[in-house]
């Protein structure tokens, strides 16, 4: 019997039991829908957090001091330990091209002339080369020690009249202090420049650590508890300490990066550095490339996804047991029909094919409905949490394959039972 005929006959018997078939596929629908929805959400989450960026800051290593066994992403458990002297000393190391601190300065608002926009985490203080030349759409990098700023497009376009190079902005720091900055450059992307910032698009203003962070920390205090506590325990009030340090290697060659990382770590952990006062046994400096940092985040997301797919797989298992169960009932119920077919010349493989086809149809229908439901679920979820929607298309293909597979596995035993039914017994069956 050709497969098309099996399909036709199998489809008829499925349609003959509409409600039962619908309930049978429900298990598969839910299983597949759960996988698709969560994988969609996972992929969207990943796109939201990491984006599809390939790190081009590959010469940089990002360092902070934390307790050695702290888990988590960039800056997890970081303590402010690095002084300006440390930064200079690290920059003077042979293996290091440049070193500068990294800090965020909390702000209240930014004004462009008359117009003021609220901005909570507006200023990112770092060294000039933090904004790489090739990332600038307009203008130049800011200079250390000057009241200059580089804006990203999202920050520049948030005013009614777009900010351009040469404009002056007034920044209101969290404490209420106002400062004037001159815009010297605009970047080409609104995504983050390093893993310290996160990679999502948002308005950002980049400024030099000097004067913004150094004065901030030594003078008024940023209002952040960290800095206050730090300054007291440091016992030398007035000197700003950085949470984070960025070290630039001469090239993105792995050996150069490792050399820069090692010599910077060695220096900072040696007695010569100011940072060593705090490091002791409690804290250790760790330097990581953005690729390594992204990888950590990726690992967490992967773990989450595997967990959810695991749960969904259990639901699929339950679904396939449902199919197997219904198929067994169906085989028993149709014993007489099987007997008739065999009596008029149906071979074992014809009967096997018929029941297997039926199970596969149920599996595939379940998979298709489940995929559709999952995609809708993923869409609603991504919309609700406000993530960029990313459909993991390879999973959609996989879902259909899984549906077929589940159908085959669940149908195999019942179909085999049907095939080896003895025609005489079957015809005698009431």
């Amino acid at each position: 019997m050709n497969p098309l005929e099996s399909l036709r006959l199998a489809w008829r018997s499925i349609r003959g039991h509409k409600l039962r078939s619908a309930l049978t596929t429900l298990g598969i629908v839910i299983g597949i829908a759960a996988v698709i929805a969560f994988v969609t959400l996972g992929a969207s989450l990943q796109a939201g957090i990491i984006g599809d960026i390939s790190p081009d800051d590959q010469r940089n290593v990002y360092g902070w001091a934390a307790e050695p066994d702290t888990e988590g992403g960039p800056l997890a458990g970081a303590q402010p330990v690095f002084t300006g002297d440390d930064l200079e000393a690290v920059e003077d190391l042979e293996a290091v091209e440049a070193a500068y601190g990294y800090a965020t300065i909390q702000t209240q608002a930014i004004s462009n002339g008359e117009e003021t926009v609220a901005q909570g985490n507006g200023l990112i203080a770092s060294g000039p080369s933090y904004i790489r030349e090739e990332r600038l759409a307009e203008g130049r990098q800011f200079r250390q020690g000057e009241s200059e700023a580089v804006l990203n497009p999202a920050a520049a376009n948030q005013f009614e009249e777009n900010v351009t190079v040469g404009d002056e902005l007034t920044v209101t720091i969290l404490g209420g202090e106002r400062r004037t900055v001159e815009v010297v450059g605009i970047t080409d992307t609104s995504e983050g420049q390093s893993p310290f910032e996160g990679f999502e698009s948002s308005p950002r203003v980049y400024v030099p650590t000097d004067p913004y962070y150094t004065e901030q920390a030594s003078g008024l205090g940023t209002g952040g508890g960290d800095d206050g506590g730090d300054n007291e325990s440091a016992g030398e009030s007035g000197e700003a300490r950085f949470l984070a340090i960025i070290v630039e290697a001469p090239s993105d060659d792995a050996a150069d990066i490792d050399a820069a990382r090692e010599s910077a770590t060695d220096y900072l952990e040696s007695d010569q550095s100011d940072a060593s006062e705090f490091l002791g046994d409690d804290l250790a400096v760790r330097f990581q490339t953005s690729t390594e940092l992204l990888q950590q985040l990726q690992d967490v997301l992967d773990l989450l996804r595997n967990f959810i797919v695991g749960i969904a797989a259990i639901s699929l298992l339950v679904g396939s047991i449902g199919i197997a169960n219904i198929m067994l009932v169906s085989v028993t119920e149709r014993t007489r029909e099987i007997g008739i077919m065999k009596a008029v010349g149906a071979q074992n493989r014809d009967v096997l094919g018929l029941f297997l086809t039926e199970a596969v149809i149920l599996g595939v229908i379940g998979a298709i409905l489940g995929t559709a439901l999952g995609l809708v679920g993923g869409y609603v979820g991504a919309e609700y949490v406000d993530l960029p929607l990313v459909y993991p298309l390879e999973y959609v293909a996989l879902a259909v394959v899984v549906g077929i597979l589940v159908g085959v596995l669940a149908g195999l035993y019942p179909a085999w039972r049907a095939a080896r039914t003895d025609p005489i017994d079957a015809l005698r069956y009431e």
Partner: protein
Amino acid sequence: MATAETAVSLSDVRKTYRIGEPVHALDGVSLEVPQGSYTAIMGPSGSGKSTLMNLVGCLDTPTEGEVVVGGRAVDALDDRERTRLRGTEVGFVFQTFNLMPRLNAVENVALPQLFQGIGRTERRERARDLLERVGLADRGDHLPNELSGGQRQRVALARALVNDPAIVLADEPSGNLDTDTEAEILDLFDEFHDAGTTMIVVTHERHVAERADRIVHLLDGRIERIEELDGGAAEPASRTGSSGRSEGDSE
């Protein structure tokens, strides 16, 4: 024993069911059914008629002895070949019709051809032809439960004929039909017989059996006697183990 002219040949066939006390459903039956003949099988309930039909119809295999259908020894065949034989060589008409409840008349008639790999259009044409022949041209699209008993039996008949079998087996084909419908069915049998098909019909009723060339009387799994009709001479029932006394009381 199986010559070219022999459609079915049984030699010392035994069928024993062992459920507690062994039941000898057939207890040493030998029988030759010539090609193109019309044989009726009679006997009391439980005498082994259906068992015999199942053996000839390649649905079952004997415990002992040999069944040859269309020149082939049935128990020497594997399941696949036996199924093939039953699909092509014999057409079985069951007492209980045994139609597929969810298939309409045309599809039921065409079912055996489906398993022979014959195309859909050809199957439908053939099925409609046969339905016309049994007088059901206008009932092709009806489901079995939308048909009367006689109509169902005619559908079953059409199905038995669809693969042009050399032998048609009918196990009490008119068991629950009224006289008129019964007569129609039996007329159809006569037609097939005249067209050269070997007919074997099980019946409880004398007037049904009398349409045949000869009547085989079964009793307790043995051939009691064989009655030749139309003036044919009675022949000795069988050899070993049979209680066959030929009585030849043809009317």
